[in-house]
């Protein structure tokens, strides 16, 4: 099988076990989590921030957070790598927003504390990935490209509109239509 290592059930169990040890303050376990996941999380942060120094800062904070919050990780709700990757994306976007919008949204963005994905993804992740890609492919181009830009670049509605010089309501309607179709397709 060509699954990425992180989605292999054994890799997942191993990470779950390690997070359990991190929860009781086992430093060696945190290092093992770092060794298994940092390249992926750094990749996510680099893609969003496009700045090595900033991406490193975010990754550093991220593992300190894992050290402090590992006990809040719930294996029944999400795979460990999903938990970590969701947190990485949100932290990197927090950083982006602080850079782009010096004052307005800082407080609100920092309030994004609940980063846990739902039990939705206790399903096999490889299967989820396939279904998601199939459903994204089925969307109109405009919907798909705006949703992807939001995910991978952390772009807001107004940034998407400005960038391509498209009226804000138009961008919103593409995204919303796409999201609703995506949900229907994923729930089939």
């Amino acid at each position, binding site marked *: 099988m060509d699954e990425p290592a992180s989605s292999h059930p054994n890799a997942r169990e191993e990470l*779950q*076990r390690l997070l*359990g*040890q991190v*929860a*009781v*303050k086992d*430093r060696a376990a945190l*290092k093992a989590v770092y060794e298994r996941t*940092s*390249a992926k999380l*750094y*990749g996510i942060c*680099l*893609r969003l921030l496009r700045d*090595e120094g900033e991406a*490193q800062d975010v*990754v*550093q904070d991220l*593992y*300190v957070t894992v*050290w*402090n*919050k*590992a*006990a*809040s*990780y*719930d*294996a*029944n*709700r*999400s795979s460990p790598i999903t938990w970590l*990757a*969701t947190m990485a994306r949100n932290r990197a976007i927090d950083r982006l927003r602080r850079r782009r919008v010096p004052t*307005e*949204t800082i407080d609100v*963005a920092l*309030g994004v504390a*609940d*980063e*846990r*994905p*739902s039990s*939705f*993804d206790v399903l096999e*992740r490889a299967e*989820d990935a396939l279904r998601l890609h199939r459903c994204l492919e089925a969307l109109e181009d405009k919907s798909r490209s705006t*949703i*992807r830009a*939001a995910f*991978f670049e*952390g772009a807001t*509605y*107004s940034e998407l509109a400005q960038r391509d010089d498209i009226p804000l309501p138009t961008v919103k309607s593409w*995204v919303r239509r796409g*999201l*609703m179709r995506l*949900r229907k397709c*994923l729930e089939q």
Partner: protein
Amino acid sequence: MSRERPDPDEPEVTAAEHALRLLTGDELRDAEARLSSDPEFAKGVARWRGRLAPLADEVEIAAPPDDLWRRIAAALGAASPANDNLISLRRNLAMWRSVAGGMTALAAGLALVLALPQRPVVTPAPVERAAASPMVAMLGDEKATKVVASWDPASRQLVLAVAGEMPSAPAHSHELWVIPAGGKPRSLGTMGGGKQMHMRLADALATLLQQGATIAISVEPPGGSKTGSPTGPVVASGALSAA
């Protein structure tokens, strides 16, 4: 504005928009407020995070520079391990409990049938000379004490009494651990369903129950952790101190 026309999909759309981090300004503030006041909305956001998460697999991995781990380790070093341990276990308890939706309080208390640890006793240690005075640990979270543990080093008797409600999950076991200051957790066995439990510890485990060691209870698969280390959330913990 989406509020102008009522739309049955609207909460779901907003949840997705928030999960994607598309919103700004008032829309973002509204979504944030709703996240803390509307559990259905919060679930929707979590669901969308899970739905979209596999996209992250497309991102190219990139090895961080070698010194990043040293920076992280240095950032952890700031806190004293023993205190940090307890405080954050307690702090985290509230968090995981709010997450663990399926968990219910096991009102009558928990049980206490002990499955003795199968792991062989490695180093017989002279506990007798440490015929120290008895110790107690109040195991709890930030709200209440749940279990009182009393430890008599002379007789190597550990007595646990359930004092409060223990959160529980169907088809899970509670497992008891001792975590020596600065050391790794060692299992003391799983717990069943009574109000009191007596156990006599083997020497190798008994030596670990020193002042400052933490006693903790975690939620594990039926029969206890398969790995020898805690894998589930910690429901109660406390440090041993002189009685």
